[in-house]
């Protein structure tokens, strides 16, 4: 950049201020006009809309004027005053920040393009025409038209909301500070301190957080491995030599996939209800999903069992696909050596399966950490347990981090700021887990192995 300004031609230097100048001066009219148009649009946006939100973000507060009513002397009436809305200030501030970042990228491209033109002219070359540029986009730069449309969607519906929610973790946005009636403001790391300080005692945030985290991991572990091994075992049973009606057996299980998950879960919840059909048939009065005793052991078990019902058909499908691919020669060699079926399983089938499906297991594990539906629809996170989960934290006994987060944002007394802190924690855990394993997996190391 600096060398472009020092060594560039006058046109390049001017294009630092007037975008597209370097292109128009060299006859690349369409490209230059495009840059100029972008710059004008951006300037107008900043002047009429974005500018004041950026100013708000950097002035260190999210609005000062409360909305309310004020007595108007001349008209002798109460007038409504439109105050600041911290929520919208922050949201539009984020939108504007993202636009500024994009603008900087485009601006750098414009300067670079012009500097590149300088270089080419100096070497006596000719400049690419508009048609050349289009052709490049369809060939060596084909990735640009492929990636840009999906990335716009990603920017609007994932990245911007995400930055917004991360910023919320540094504010005091909760029930007592809900716009438009109230304002909220930056509080620095106060929410993180609340979450991780031990001052609340055993039912305070820090301890409750650890309890929820522990259960999240226990759940993810059991949910992942019970599904995996049961799916594998059933697949092996179906594939066993001499078993007839293989298609029928598989269909029995696979039909379960067709019922939408939320229907199955609601149905199971009703079946397991204290007044549900299961209790009526057994003539018992067991609180399958709401028994609080022993750290709510029974509801936790039921959740894992129901999850087996939902998940096994998927792993069954996958394992049967892979089992067919185990080279038959391995088995033959083992049988020649007189290996028993269990030893064949532990020395051939299982290692082969694990070797191939490790990335799948990791994805499943992370997916289960964030498995909202199963918990939310079965127990809603409950039963409520005020001994181990203090009322102020709004956590309940079978809550995962995600369901706790969801309750904190949808409850009667929402704490968006605390929810954001939890979201960040979930994010860090899952991102670390998956980045490590993903980059170690052979799928990445040997991308081109099969080409």
């Amino acid at each position, binding site marked *: 950049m600096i060398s472009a300004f020092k060594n560039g031609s006058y046109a390049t230097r001017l294009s630092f201020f007037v975008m597209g100048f370097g292109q128009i001066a060299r006859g690349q009219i369409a490209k230059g006009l495009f840059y100029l148009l972008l710059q004008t649009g951006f300037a107008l946006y900043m002047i009429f809309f974005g500018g004041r939100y950026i100013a708000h973000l950097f002035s260190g507060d999210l609005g000062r004027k409360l909305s309310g009513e004020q007595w108007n002397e001349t008209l002798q009436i109460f007038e409504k005053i439109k105050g600041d809305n911290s*929520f919208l200030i922050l949201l*539009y501030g984020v*939108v504007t920040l993202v636009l500024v970042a994009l603008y900087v990228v485009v601006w750098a491209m414009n300067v670079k393009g012009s500097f590149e033109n300088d270089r080419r002219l100096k070497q006596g070359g000719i400049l690419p025409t508009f048609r050349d540029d289009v052709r490049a986009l*369809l*060939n060596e730069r*084909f*990735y640009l038209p*492929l*990636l840009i449309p*999906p990335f716009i*969607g*990603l920017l609007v*519906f*994932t*990245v911007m*909301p*995400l930055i917004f*929610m991360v910023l919320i973790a540094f504010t005091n946005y909760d029930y007592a500070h809900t716009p438009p009636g109230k304002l909220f403001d930056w509080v620095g790391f106060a929410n993180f301190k609340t979450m991780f300080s031990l001052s609340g005692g055993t039912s305070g945030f820090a301890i409750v957080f650890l309890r929820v985290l522990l259960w999240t991991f226990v759940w993810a572990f059991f949910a992942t491995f019970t599904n995996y091994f049961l799916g594998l075992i059933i697949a092996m*049973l*179906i594939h*066993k030599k*001499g*078993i007839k009606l293989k298609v029928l*057996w598989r269909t*029995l*299980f*696979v*039909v*379960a*996939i*067709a019922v*939408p*998950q939320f*229907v199955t879960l609601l*149905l199971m919840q*009703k079946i397991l209800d204290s*007044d549900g*059909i299961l209790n009526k048939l057994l003539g018992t009065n067991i609180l399958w999903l709401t028994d609080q005793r022993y750290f709510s052991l029974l509801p936790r078990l039921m959740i894992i069992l129901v999850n087996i019902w939902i998940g096994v*058909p998927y792993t069954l*499908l*996958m394992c*049967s*696909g892979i089992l067919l691919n185990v080279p038959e020669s391995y088995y033959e060699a083992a049988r020649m050596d007189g290996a028993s079926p269990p030893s064949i399983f532990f020395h051939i089938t299982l290692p082969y399966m694990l070797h*191939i499906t*490790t*990335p799948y297991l990791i994805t499943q594990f992370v997916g289960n950490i964030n498995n*909202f539906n199963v918990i939310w629809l079965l127990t809603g996170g409950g039963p409520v347990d005020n001994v181990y989960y203090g009322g102020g934290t709004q956590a309940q006994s079978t809550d995962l981090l995600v369901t706790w987060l969801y309750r904190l*944002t949808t409850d009667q007394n929402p704490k*968006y700021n605390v*929810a954001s802190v939890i*979201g960040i924690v979930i*994010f860090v855990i899952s*991102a670390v887990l*998956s*980045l490590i394993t993903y980059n170690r*997996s052979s*799928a990445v190391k040997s*991308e081109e192995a*099969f*080409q």
Partner: protein
Amino acid sequence: MMQKSMAKIGGRISDAVTYAVLGVLGTLWVLPIFYLVYTAFRVTPSTGIINTLFPSDLRLGIGNFVRLFRDTLFAKWLLNTMIVAVFSCALTTLFILMVSYALSRLRFRLRKPIMNVLLVLGMFPGFMSMIAVYFILKAMGLTNSLVALVMVYSGSAALSYYICKGFFDTVPRAMEEAAILDGASQPVVFWKIIMPMAKPIIVYTVLTSFISPWCDFIFVNTIISDREKYTVALGLFKMINAEKNSFNDNFTVFCAGAFVVGSIIVTLFMSMQKYYVEGVTAGAVKG
């Protein structure tokens, strides 16, 4: 001789055990579905909870389906879901194919960083930012519209490039190199050479992205408040979770609705099961 027949008997016993285990497990898996179908067709007793599986005044019929289509907005919800599913499926599939093709077959600077960033972005629990998404849609004037749902469902499509990219990674390079030598441009290679070969993974992507709008009720619940604009998932969810007694009154109708949705998905699955299995396997085998 003796040994051989012993082995035969042993084999028979182990077969019998296998059949027994499969039979028990299969029953366990089918029972809830049976209960669902049974309740959907149960006209009396009409309350949600019954004390025995076969009450004395049991009567079966299609009464619940009549109530479903006459007394609720189910037909409208069905249409809404179909519209959203078709459009978001088309957009999502296109986006996923574009991203995974670019990341798998093309080589450019920032390719690896982009892959890592996408992976990390996908780790963020989606509904954590739901409120922000709601206000962004509101600023665009799109709340309470099906367009918003399509945008939300397909907006994050790029994040699920992983399985599809794994598939593209296995397609041999020789053919496209030959085509490029013959002067074909990248778009031609993309449409004429890679796409036809990628049929299983396309079907898999289409299927999964078509089905997800049928199952999501959380996003719909935030974005849409107009009952006319509900999708089936939210409609059915509200049917038995909205008011205190709604469960007792509506459980049989709910099951009828679930039966309709289930049948649609079963039909889709059965017709495309082969590709689905190939897709699942292709994604996992890439280890």
